[in-house]
C-alpha cells in the first residue's frame, strides 16, 4: 500500500498522526525530521486578519512530487510527506507540514529543509492577506530564492 506523498487540502492536519502513518511498521526508521509552517499575525509589519491560499491544482502536486524525488535522490531517506493547506486561514493556523523519515538524523534534517526551501520557490501557491488597509497579495521574498539556491547547482529539471 502506498499512501500519497503529497496532499493539498482545506482541512487541518495532525502532525503526530501523519508521522505515525509515515513511519508505520518500518523499524528501519531512526529519525523523523518535520516542519510546520504557521500563519502569523504580522507580515512585513502589518497586522494580518486572515489569509487566503490559492494554488494551481495538478501542477502543485506534480511540482512537490518532483521536489520529493529530488530529495530522495540526494539523501538516504525512506519516505517523505507534504501536506499543504489552501483556502482561508487565520493567524495560528497550520499551513504546511513536511516530514521525512531516515535511518539517521543528518539525512532527515537536510531532506526536510530542502523540500521546504524548494516548495517555497517552486510550488504554485499564492497567499493573499487581509489587512486593515484591505487585501494584498504577498510578495515573493528574495531570501526564499537565496535559501533554495544554497542547495546548489543541480537544479530541479522541468
Amino acid at each position, binding site marked *: 500500500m502506498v499512501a500519497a506523498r503529497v496532499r493539498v487540502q482545506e482541512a487541518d492536519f495532525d502532525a503526530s498522526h501523519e508521522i505515525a502513518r509515515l513511519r508505520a511498521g518500518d523499524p528501519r526508521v531512526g529519525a523523523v525530521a518535520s516542519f510546520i509552517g504557521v500563519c502569523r499575525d504580522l507580515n512585513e509589519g502589518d497586522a494580518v486578519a486572515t489569509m487566503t491560499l490559492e*494554488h*494551481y491544482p495538478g501542477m502543485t502536486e506534480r511540482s512537490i512530487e518532483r521536489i520529493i524525488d529530488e530529495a530522495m535522490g540526494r539523501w538516504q531517506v525512506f519516505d517523505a510527506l507534504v501536506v499543504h493547506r489552501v483556502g482561508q486561514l487565520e493567524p495560528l493556523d497550520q*499551513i504546511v507540514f513536511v516530514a521525512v523519515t531516515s535511518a539517521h538524523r543528518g539525512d532527515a534534517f537536510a531532506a526536510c529543509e530542502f523540500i521546504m526551501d524548494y516548495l517555497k520557490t*517552486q510550488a*504554485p501557491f*499564492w497567499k493573499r492577506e487581509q489587512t486593515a488597509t484591505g487585501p494584498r497579495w504577498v510578495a*515573493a*521574498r528574495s531570501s526564499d530564492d537565496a535559501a533554495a539556491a544554497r542547495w546548489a547547482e543541480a537544479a530541479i529539471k522541468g
Partner: protein
Amino acid sequence: MVKLLYFARLRERLDCATESLELPAGVSTVGALRLWLAGRGGEWQAALAQDQSVRVAVNQDMASDATPVQDHDEVAFFPPVTGG
C-alpha cells in the same frame, strides 16, 4: 487550441482565470505567446510586459521564454509563488 490559465494577482488584474485560444500564426514559444497577449493592450500590456515578474508553466512544468508551445498545450501565467 491552447488552454491558458492565470493565477493570483495576475488573474485579478486581467479579470480572467482561463481561456481557450487558437494559437496565433507565428507563435510557437512561451516568449512569443506572452508578447502576443501583451499586444491586447490595457491591463494585458501592463501585466505581461517584459519588466513584470511573470512565471510561465507549460503543461504544468516551469517554462522559459524559449519553451515551445503547440496545439493542445496548457499554458499558465502567474506571479512568483508564495506558499509554504
